[in-house]
């Protein structure tokens, strides 16, 4: 039986969601990401997964304009599901502060003539950042079971709040070992996948997920090395990927970004690779958060 809904319900469901096109042109081109996109960010410890997420958060929650400054944000709201307990509100506030300060200082230097435009004080910036932070909705979960229940309850939240355009889940691999020990891994991943895909398609949301590299790729996989051949080159070797959450999960992800860090001479070099869109990008992490090179 197909469900019917009134036009008003449809509008509430789909209308008014902020578009996130151009969220990060370095990664998703100009016309992406679109509603319904599910992207995964995979990497070892310390490759900047959470930092990259904070970068997306700042971009989405900042407004397009503030006073006469062009901020270039999306003025949207986000749901951040933190199962790794790594989300730091202080860090996010600091990145927001630094970015706005840079913009404010940059503009006033360029337009010296317009003295009448008054420069915002520290206090103004502070309260502006606090207002932006209101657009972040944070949920922390302790177990797969709680995650499943919370995801079900998010539907209400998303329904009530048309500003929500992005859901971030950091990370899907947290409960891997505990679920595996209780023999519930496949069941739980299936449940999580089905509720997430319902949320994303019904409400036209964008979903980003991190996955920690908990399992090492089997290096002695001969068939694999033959298939790759010689010409696969360096990049395939560097950006190794091992799926450990099963086929259901594998097929759920539309694009997978593999992140790595190289350390040379006391300098960390971060980069990110996506096989599906044949793209490799380098980035740095500073007090201003992630910046693409």
């Amino acid at each position, binding site marked *: *039986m197909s*469900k019917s809904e009134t036009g008003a319900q449809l509008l509430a469901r789909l209308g008014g969601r902020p578009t996130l096109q151009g969220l990060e042109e370095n990664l998703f081109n100009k016309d992406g990401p679109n509603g319904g996109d599910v992207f995964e960010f995979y990497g*070892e*410890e*310390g490759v900047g997964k*959470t*930092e990259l997420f904070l970068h997306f958060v700042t971009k989405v*929650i900042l407004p397009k304009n503030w006073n006469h400054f062009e901020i270039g944000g999306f003025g949207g709201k986000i*749901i951040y599901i933190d199962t*790794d*307990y*790594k989300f*730091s*509100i*202080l*860090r*996010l*506030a600091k990145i927001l502060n630094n970015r706005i300060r840079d913009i404010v200082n940059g503009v006033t230097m360029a337009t010296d003539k317009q003295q009448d435009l008054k420069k915002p004080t520290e206090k103004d910036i502070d309260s502006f950042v*606090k*207002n*932006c*932070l*209101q*657009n*972040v*909705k*944070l*949920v*922390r*979960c*302790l177990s797969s*079971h*709680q995650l*499943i*229940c*919370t995801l*079900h*309850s998010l539907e209400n*939240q998303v329904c009530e709040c048309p500003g929500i355009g992005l859901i971030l889940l950091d990370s899907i691999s*947290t*409960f*891997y*070992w*505990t679920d*595996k*020990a*209780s023999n*519930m891994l496949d*069941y739980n991943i299936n*449940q999580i996948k*089905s*509720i997430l895909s319902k949320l994303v398609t019904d409400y036209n949301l964008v979903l980003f997920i991190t996955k*920690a*590299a*908990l*399992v*090492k790729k089997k290096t002695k996989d001969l068939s694999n090395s033959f298939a790759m051949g010689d010409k696969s080159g360096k990049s395939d070797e560097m950006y190794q990927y091992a799926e450990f959450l099963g086929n259901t999960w594998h097929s759920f992800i539309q694009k997978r970004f593999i992140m790595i860090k190289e*350390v040379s001479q*006391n300098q*960390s070099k971060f980069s990110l690779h996506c096989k599906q869109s044949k793209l490799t990008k380098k980035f740095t992490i500073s007090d201003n958060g992630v910046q693409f090179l």
Partner: protein
Amino acid sequence: MALLKVFISSLITEKALQVFEEKGIRTVTDFLGRDLEEVAQENALPFKDLVAMKRHILVKLSSSIRNGRELLQCVDSGIVYLSTGIKRLDDLLNGGIYIGEVTEICGGIAVGKTQICLSCLYYTTAVKQANVIYIDTSCSFSSTRVLELAGKKNQNEEEILSRVKHCACSDIFEIFQVIEEIRSGLDKKSDVFYSNIKLVIVDCIASVIYPILGGNQIDGHSLMVQISQKLKILAVDYSVAVLVTNNVVSSDDGKWLPSLGRTWSHVPHTRIILSSDNHQPGQRKATLVKSSRSSVPNNIKFYLPQGIT
């Protein structure tokens, strides 16, 4: 995994549960995963009741949503970090050991892991007047060393040591027990000692995890993940700083890496690796390898604090 039975109430009746059981719906996740309209049609239960049941269960089980502004206000009041008592190390860590984080110190034998723990403990108790829990898995705590650090500064020795609770734990289950005690103490808010806790030290986490990692990979890793979750909850939800020490292993290219493997490597928020130099006795090198505040890797050289000899 909660059984639906737990939620028996005027809303979720025994009768409804029996109907569910016949259809294979036993746990909460079974129930939530179903399309309620289908369930209503199959079992001739009122759709309205099912929706009410779902709402009731979700309210009880899902975690609450908090917005960023409230979170910042919670953090803003109160101390943000605790000094380690070693100036150069504090600079490396951007101030010290942060509240709300799990900080890990890795290093080989006798590079000063415990010394840093004790120094941090001394500063927290004597300078910040806060209480410390010391979870000791390898009998390395020394109260005389703490008093040595205090020196002759005319401080009340009794007061410093009364701010420390020492818990000797020989296996991971005893640590679970201690953490539960801390949590219930913090929840009750009646115990003066617990409500003033700012630092929890686990020295050393590796020695209780090694024994469970052998044999069945899955069970050992599952316990390891659980202890890491408990420590993080303690740090984040109860606003204390958690300091753990870990051993090192050498990698293929001769570098020191934290022990306990890939899964544990994701656990701490901040990690430093200590090493000593054979030519410079007493001097130590600390390398910051994981941090969300400063660029990594970054290293400094320092000397361990001397007490009165």
